[in-house]
């Protein structure tokens, strides 16, 4: 791993931690606990686009560990929920980004960033609820499932749009040649 790649990973990781902490400060005008924007998911997907699954997984893993260490929620229920959510959404977004597009044969037929983001948000909520059911050992937790899944469409759409504009800006300003980044 080159020094340049290490530096970029460190910058992405600190951005992800800041978004993770910042998100907890935003009140959601919605009477359901657990529904949130998933801003840190932007960085996970950006790392998937720029690098590979391993790097994105590393960033998602370290982001939940360090983010909850800084917010003081480490190793309580909220930590395990966000940990399970981050892992499952990273894996599912990697599947959507790398494994599925060849099935559709043409390059432009694959999933867009917004689509992958929605899929990641849905996988995040599913993983989170599976972990919650495991911890609380009560099937009543699955009453949340329809609401959480439905909320993943607008939240995933929003974070996907933000990422699309971010990548567009990085390309315009000459900071991003994706091929070149992949070789780091």
């Amino acid at each position: 791993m080159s020094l340049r790649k290490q530096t970029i990973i460190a910058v992405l990781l600190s951005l992800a931690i800041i978004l993770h902490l910042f998100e907890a400060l935003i009140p959601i005008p919605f009477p359901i606990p657990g529904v949130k924007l998933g801003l840190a998911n932007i960085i996970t997907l950006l790392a998937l686009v720029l690098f590979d699954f391993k790097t994105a997984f590393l960033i998602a893993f370290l982001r939940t560990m360090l983010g909850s260490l800084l917010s003081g929620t480490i190793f309580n229920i909220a930590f395990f929920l966000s940990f399970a959510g981050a892992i499952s959404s990273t894996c599912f977004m990697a599947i959507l980004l790398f494994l599925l597009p060849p099935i559709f044969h043409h390059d432009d037929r694959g999933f867009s960033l917004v689509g992958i983001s929605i899929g990641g948000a849905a996988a995040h909520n599913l993983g989170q609820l599976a972990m919650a059911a495991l911890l609380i050992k009560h099937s009543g937790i699955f009453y949340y499932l329809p609401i959480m899944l439905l909320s993943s469409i607008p939240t995933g759409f929003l974070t996907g749009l933000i990422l699309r504009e971010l990548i567009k800006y990085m390309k315009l300003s000459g900071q991003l040649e994706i091929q070149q980044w992949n070789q780091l």
Partner: protein
Amino acid sequence: MNKANKILIAVVLALVLFSYWGFFPAYRENVPLTAVISVNGDIVVQLKLDESISKHFIKVPGPLGTSVVEVKPGAIRMKSSPCPEHYCTKTGWIDRPGQVVACIPNRVIIKISPDKESLDAISH
């Protein structure tokens, strides 16, 4: 929006509908409650609080005298009691599994037994 994205969003929406209608009939049907009245720990009356019962009174004899329990579909309460403090009548109607009306002086306990496991609240 291309075909792949439409399929993805359709799958998520289908999961929402499936989880709402398929998995959880509890959203739609009311589980009938069972009320248990006991005196001195012995069960004297056990009845289902569903739509088939009409509003009526049950007289329950205890050590101090007769307690009167009122029953209606979905709820139960202590109507009157010979006890001095009347905490039991002040409890009012109970209508959820796990709730209890207790009259300690007259040894009468009304309890809605949990037919199904249920949660009071979920906190994050």
